């Protein structure tokens, strides 16, 4: 076979591998119990080669998971060398420092065999709604309070489940049947992917993946380097101050473009805090590189080669490289801000390709209350969670997206589903006029959410909201996005973080922040201003005041 034909065949196999991991992700979503996995798609699924290199990732999934898992697989292989793995083995951990940064993310890695030989490893990483402990809020003082820690260990050995582990797991969580169902679904999705892989190797008359993996890594590395080489060389710094748990936190980054590599150094970033918003280095890397790849090399499929030219370092003990046993449960609050910080650096190098800051941190509303009197299970406690997104930052040639999850990409649950699974009423979920930062390109709009118990009884919120004191910053003359707000309908302001009570008869009101604007508002096209006023995205007063528009 000629070299060109061989290459062609390798490309066909590459397409096939991406389809196999997508099947893996879809199987997972369809069999999972956690709303976070099944409804929100808060998961990742991927294939690794025997060196632990990420070869293919599913289209469905979140950046925080996949890139964290990409870094974590080597830990599995260090403890359980490939040569010792047998068919039917499955490995598990939720160690935040080895994989995705908090205990709620459980990773299962399974060897895939072909003709009796190990040829690759399939991994899934999923967000469990419950892992015991305090729940997924920032209130823990150390990782010990945040739930059950599962060290890197065998979940199954030669097809036999580790019943001891499952017993410990089931006793430590509030919803044991669901958690058990989830863990079993991770195994079956990895197993079905392994069967597909073996069938594919047979079809292409290959013994293993080695040459294909090399090709994928080399190609992706070369393509990424070529994109980096087009960028201006140099070093740029930026900083971002966010609310933090009870005091503001400043994140600092220096981005260096040097030849075919990019280095991000978080030197100067504030120290970690005794509340669960700290970020482990794996997760910090995951979102940093995601932000870079969105701008620099979005077309290159995500894998080891595509990630390699990006280096991320952070001082030990800083809030983006926290050490054991500091608490980490709500690490997304800071992790999801990292693309904005990276954009701040990149915008100085390539201003015409970089969006402004957005609301960025997902507003995950976690409520706890009691089933209403006179109904089945009256008095039992319940937990409900639903996701809400604010506005994304204005983009170089487009306005920001309203009520859209960037960078997380997770889906919101339907209101009707949420109200069917918990005795709450979401009274409002509506875009907020004037919440998008003004500018030639306007920031995306945030939204207002109002929620209460169906019977008006008291309930609690595990708040972990951001950009309440520190809005998304505009760029090049664009305005800031609106700040977030957490309050009661009766008027009292509430904290943006921590467990708090909403009294009987009251409602919780959340204003989810807007994205920032880009460029001077006075440069915005008049027809866009007129449309914004007509649609109620911008009030007539704001149009007149900021855009110099007489409409309205």
């Amino acid at each position, binding site marked *: *076979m*000629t070299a*060109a*034909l061989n*290459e*062609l065949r390798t*490309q*066909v196999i*590459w*397409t096939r591998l991406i389809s196999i991991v*997508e*099947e893996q992700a879809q199987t997972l979503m*369809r*069999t*999972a*119990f956690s*709303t976070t996995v*099944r409804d929100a*798609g808060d998961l990742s699924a991927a294939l690794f080669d025997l060196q632990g290199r990420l070869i293919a990732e599913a*289209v469905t999934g979140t950046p925080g998971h996949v890139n964290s898992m990409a870094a974590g697989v080597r830990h599995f292989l260090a403890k359980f060398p490939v040569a010792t793995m047998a068919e039917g083995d499955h490995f598990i951990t939720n160690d935040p420092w080895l994989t995705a940064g908090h205990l709620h993310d459980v990773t299962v890695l399974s060897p895939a065999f072909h003709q009796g030989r190990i040829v690759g490893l399939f991994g899934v990483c999923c967000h469990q709604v419950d892992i015991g402990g305090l729940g997924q809020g920032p209130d823990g003082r150390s990782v010990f309070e945040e739930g059950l820690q599962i060290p890197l260990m065998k979940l199954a050995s030669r097809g036999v489940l580790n019943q001891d582990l499952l017993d410990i797991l089931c006793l430590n969580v509030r919803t044991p*049947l669901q958690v058990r*169902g989830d863990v*079993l679904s991770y195994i*079956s999705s990895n197993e079905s992917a392994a069967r*597909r892989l073996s069938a594919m190797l047979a*079809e292409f008359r290959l013994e293993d993946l080695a040459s294909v993996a090399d090709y994928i890594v080399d*190609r*992706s590395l*070369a*393509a990424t380097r*070529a*994109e980096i080489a087009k960028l201006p060389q140099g070093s740029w710094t930026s900083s971002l101050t966010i609310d933090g748990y009870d005091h503001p936190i400043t994140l600092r980054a220096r981005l260096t473009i040097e030849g075919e590599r990019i280095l991000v150094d978080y030197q100067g970033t504030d120290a970690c805090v005794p509340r669960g918003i700290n970020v482990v280095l794996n997760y910090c890397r995951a979102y940093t590189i995601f932000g870079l*790849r*969105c701008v620099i090399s979005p*077309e290159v499929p*995500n894998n080891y080669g595509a990630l390699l030219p990006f280096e991320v370092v952070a001082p030990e003990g800083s809030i983006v490289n926290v050490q054991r046993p500091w608490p980490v449960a709500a690490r997304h609050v800071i992790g999801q801000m990292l693309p904005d910080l990276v954009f701040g650096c990149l915008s100085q190098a390539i201003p015409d390709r970089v*969006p402004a800051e957005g609301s960025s941190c997902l507003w995950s509303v976690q409520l706890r209350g009691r089933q209403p009197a006179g109904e089945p299970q009256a008095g039992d406690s319940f937990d409900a969670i639903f996701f*809400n*997104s604010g506005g994304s930052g204005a983009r170089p040639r487009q306005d920001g*997206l309203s*009520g*859209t*999850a*960037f960078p997380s*990409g*997770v*889906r*919101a649950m*339907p*209101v009707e589903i949420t*109200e*069917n699974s918990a005795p709450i*009423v979401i*009274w409002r*979920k509506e*875009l907020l006029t004037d919440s998008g930062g003004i500018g030639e390109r306007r920031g995306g709009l945030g939204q207002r959410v*109002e929620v209460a118990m169906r019977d008006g009884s008291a309930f609690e919120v595990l708040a972990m909201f951001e950009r309440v004191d520190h809005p998304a910053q505009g760029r090049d003359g664009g305005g800031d996005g609106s700040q977030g707000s957490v309050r009661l309908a009766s008027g009292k302001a509430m904290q943006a973080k921590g467990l708090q009570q909403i009294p009987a008869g009251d409602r919780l009101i959340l204003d989810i922040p807007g994205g920032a604007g880009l460029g001077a508002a006075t440069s915005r096209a008049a027809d866009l201003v007129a449309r914004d006023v*007509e*649609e*109620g995205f911008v009030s007539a007063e704001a149009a007149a005041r900021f855009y110099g528009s007489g409409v309205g």
Partner: protein
Amino acid sequence: MTSTTDRGPSTPKGARIGADIGGTFTDIVLEVGDRRHSTKLLTTYDAPERALLDGVRLLLDEAGVAPAEVSLVVHGTTLATNALIERRGVPTALLTTEGFRDVLALGSESRFDQYDIGMEKPQPLVPRRLRVGVAERMDARGQVLVPLDGDAVRAAAAQWREQGIRSVAIAFLHSYANDSHERRAAEILAAEMPGVSLSLSSEVSPEMREYERFSTTVANAYVQPLVDAYLHRLDDKLKAMGFGCPLYLMLSSGGLTTVEAAARYPVRLVESGPAGGAIFAASVAAERGVGQVVALDVGGTTAKICLINDGMPQTSQVFEVGRAHRFRKGSGLPLRIPVVEMVEIGAGGGSIASVDNAGRLAVGPHSAGSEPGPAAYGRGGTRPTVTDADITLGRIDPSRFAGGKVTLNAGASHDALAALGIWDGKAETLAIGVSEIVDETMASAARVHAVEQGMTLDDRSLIAFGGAAPLHAARFAEKLGIREVIIPSGAGVGSAIGFLRAPVSYEMARSLTLRLDQLDLDRLNSLLDGMTAEARALVEAGAPGAAQVERRTCLARYKGQGYEIPFEIPARTLVPEDVDLLRAAFETAYRTQYGGVTLDLPIEALIWRVTVGSPAWKPKDRAVVTATRDVEVTQRRPVIDPDSGVALSFALVRREAMRPGDRVQGPALITERETTTVVSPRFDAWMDANGYLILTRREEG
């Protein structure tokens, strides 16, 4: 434009007409006894009925049949679909629950493309200023939390009258559980805005999940006046021509309905053409006596893949219209309607090949369409397409393409491929690459689609139709391990033929959440019986006196899961002893779908469906024919085989020259006027009693 006649497989009494108006062509089929006449005309956008009536006249003349002798006219149209995609509906407003006017804009709040910073969400059909919230609220159990503010509805009506609104969607939260507020609001609007079209979410799509329900209701409202006017105009003109038979409309679900029902819920028509294709494939499967099928329809710009199980095209409850972004899921408007489940991807004869910045050869989703078309057409297209690759591989004879109507320039194909610039610019290698990538893309789509449906592709037959499918079907089958490929005749007008094979049917769905171990049987039976009565009345109106077949389906999941799976339940009054039967049916369906173990968790039923239809189409009995005669091969040509990458000597056979029982050993090309069937070296072909080509995988030696 053209008209062909061939032997049809079925002989019902009287003449029957199927008419499929698509985006480019209007296909008409007339069946008279055992004969089939068909024609393809360009669609007349300004008045779609013109091409339809012209084609009908043409075929009636050709067959010597008078309109009064026609016993059935079945019509499918993309009118509603195009109006939705091109935003050409009537001025429409949305009346909704206060606090929820932005449900359509928020959607799922997610991004369908993780890395694309420039992505845009689908724009709602109704702009924000026309989406008005009024005070009212139901809870999830259908109990009133806030009464409807009638004055607010009147105020909205006054504003909309000023604004020239012709159609209003009424969509309140939890109206699937209690529709009284929607109905009251409709009464007020009908009084305040005489003549306005009203679409209620509790009628159009009475199911949980507000984004999908609101989106469906708004889409219905947006096209209702257009479709209503068109259908009645067409009906009148047919009557004026002397037709005495009823006019039926093809539904997205694969069933037929009356003009009145179609005009009321036009959103159910959006996938009528593809549904006709699926019914066509199912009828071919019935003729062949195979139950488990993958249907592949490849045209110029897209490929559609549908699974047929036990002879029935798979159906689903959600469809996305107008996927803008590389056919990505989430980039279109969701419609919750009964629809033949299929995956559509940007892969067809006109799909353009390119090299991405990772040096990978990519094919589609952009298409050169028919204008400018592939480079070989010489109409200004310079970018290489799948058709150019097929020509370069030697699969298409340039002098006989499209019956000789289009002269192909093989040199232009060669040059366009070489210009891709990789692999030393070797056009033949690149042609293999384009063919392999497009086949792999289609195979991947089929595989992921099967997983999403909880199905497998093992042991299925492939039925391939549409202009480009026979060229790629064998390789597609090889990639999926499929051992039998069926290439029916009449494949160019498959949808219109499918219309004539469809039952008159109606499907209804309602949300009612019940745990299987705590069934409220009185409530459930009364819900199901009510649905049955409504569906039976609609079918009786369409097929008076015909026998009716009823199926009931439950969608359930383990409590705590996010996706329901369907399973059939008895179509009769349920009794307490049925609970075990329902649980067992669910567990069987679950195991089939996901393999794995059944779980010790409560089972929760969410949605109940009733389908009533006239009996399914039955193929005519034919003498069994087996492959007995080898066709004499007088011509051969070199064709490159993508599996080995080398040119082999392919036998060249004309399909018209083959008779039932004739057999051709692969590798071979079987040519016909509209397309060519590639019989790869791993397949043999023969013609069955219906005139279909059957490709069978040779046992590995």
